[in-house]
């Protein structure tokens, strides 16, 4: 298919569904913030100023300032890169590993299927957030380990989707035909089955991104992973939580809202992505 037709299809899906278009616009905005956050932020996110402690939102500080006088807007903007980066890395990890394991399980069956499925069941048997906490606690308190922990707890979802989608297609005529065309089993899995399971997996990725952001922020909220001076939505909410009672709501409200918006955006994105990737929606 030509690139032009692909672009036309993307435009068609966006025009057809304004909610998707909105989600994509929001996503684009977040990506901009993530990439150029340090240059877009009006103030230094780490600079403290004792004379401007806990100021409410104003023209100078749109989101107000925190207990150390740091500009919350700047911190929220700069944090986007870290939060998105962690979530993206975790989701890509679990997508790659989960799809490979799940697709093999669904295609080859037998002992591969049994062991992979039991692995997924075992992970699912834990309360996932507690498992993530345990993994970070065991591996060490660092950003990489938050990524690994988030990837591991998301693994079962990819394994299950990939396994079931491959399983329903492994006896399809086109798989048998691919064998006759000279494909080895591994090639069939990679070039015939994998592209066909992408639409449902894409939805999973998008839903998962939101969830991964929430998870990474959650771990930071309870003090794991990201260290305090570094701006990160979870930590910012945690730091502001104690000021809620005394009336300084903006300290945790804005990072929380942005976090919620990001998760919401990814959830909406899922449907749109599926439509774009599914060739049957192409006209």
């Amino acid at each position, binding site marked *: 298919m030509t690139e032009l037709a692909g672009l036309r299809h993307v435009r068609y899906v966006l025009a057809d569904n304004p909610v998707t278009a909105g989600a994509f616009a929001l996503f684009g905005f977040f990506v901009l913030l993530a990439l150029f956050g340090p240059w877009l932020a009006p103030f230094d996110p780490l600079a403290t100023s004792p004379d401007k402690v806990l100021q409410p939102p104003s023209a100078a500080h749109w989101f107000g300032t925190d207990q150390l006088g740091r500009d919350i807007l700047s911190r929220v903007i700069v944090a986007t890169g870290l939060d998105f980066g962690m979530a993206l890395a975790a989701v890509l990890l679990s997508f790659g590993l989960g799809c490979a394991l799940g697709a093999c399980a669904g295609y080859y069956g037998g002992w591969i299927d049994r062991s992979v499925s039991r692995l997924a069941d075992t992970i699912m048997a834990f309360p996932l957030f507690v498992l993530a906490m345990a993994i970070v606690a065991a591996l060490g308190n660092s950003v990489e380990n938050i990524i690994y922990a988030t990837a591991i707890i998301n693994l079962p979802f990819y394994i299950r989707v990939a396994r079931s989608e491959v399983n329903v297609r492994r006896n399809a005529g086109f798989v048998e035909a691919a*064998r006759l065309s*000279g494909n080895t089993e591994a090639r069939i899995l990679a070039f015939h089955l994998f592209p066909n399971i992408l639409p449902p997996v894409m939805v999973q990725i998008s839903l998962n991104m939101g969830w991964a952001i929430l998870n990474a922020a959650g771990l930071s909220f309870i003090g794991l992973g990201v260290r305090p001076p570094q701006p990160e939505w979870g930590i910012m909410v945690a730091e502001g939580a104690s000021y809620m009672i005394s009336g300084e709501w903006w300290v945790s409200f804005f990072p929380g809202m942005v976090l919620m918006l990001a998760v919401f955006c990814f959830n909406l994105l899922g449907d749109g992505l599926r439509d774009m990737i599914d060739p049957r929606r192409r006209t």
Partner: protein
Amino acid sequence: MIDDTQPLLQVEQVRKLFPLKTAGSLVPLRAARRTALLHAVDGVDLSIGRGESVGLVGESGCGKSTLVRLITRTLDPTEGSIRFRGEDIGGIPASRFARVPQRKLIQMVFQDPTDSLNPRYTARDTIAEPLRLLGNLSGTALSDRIEAIAALVQMPRELLGRFPHQLSGGQKARVGIARAVALEPSLLILDEPTAALDVSVQAVILHLLADLREKLGMSYLFVSHDLNIVRLLCDRVMVMYLGRIVESGPARQVFEAPRHPYTRALLSAIPGLGGEASRRIRLEGDPTSPVDPDPGRCRFHGRCPKGQDACTRSSPSLVQMAPGHAVACHFPESA
């Protein structure tokens, strides 16, 4: 190197048994468990000559598809030999067959053109794949060849860029045929190639297939339960019942003077325009189960209108009744 006196394909006493999962207790008792075997293909002999067109008919579940998968070498036989141009290919594991030189010589047109095309591959991608993987073509040589094949199956060039869901049933069938003949195989297996098509398209596709056979000099193994199609296109017919060939012979002879009671019943079921409804032979009873069938008994007994005690004592084997015409029945019809 290639022995021309040998038939193109020679299958001898090939069997495929599938173990069935037995509903056992939670704790498997080794001694008590004996896996039941489903005899899908149970000792089949067949040979296909160069340029010959052979029909394989039989009801659903008789093992046609399993036999086809054994011949296309995507399934390993339990026993027996499959020789292609004199070389034993039955012993090559199906998982390795994709890289064997015979792969490109044995191709297949699938029953359902929708199911057999990858929904994410354009017609061009689908036709290109065997040429790339087995024909080692690339670049302009590849695209020239794709266009030549599209012309051969009378498919407009503009359709090559389309996905299966943008093609009609007949066009999809052409893509499937183009993929199969792209490498000019010597044996083409056609698994009910027209079953999923409209009657009007069926005729066109059948003409195309007959044309292609002449142009490319392929042998056909035509699997169908549409007996009229087999009668039109095939030189020889084999009738299969529960994993075995019960009658095989020249198409004319089998259709005009069937010897096996099952073949007679099958032929009488062809819908005709004349008021011949009364001549239809109805088979009573259910087919014997293919799971661990009694080897000392005719498989057709119980449904056979001619069944006698002798049929429960031994299983008939294929016996030559006339030149090239063999029947497996204790009480065959006389010519």
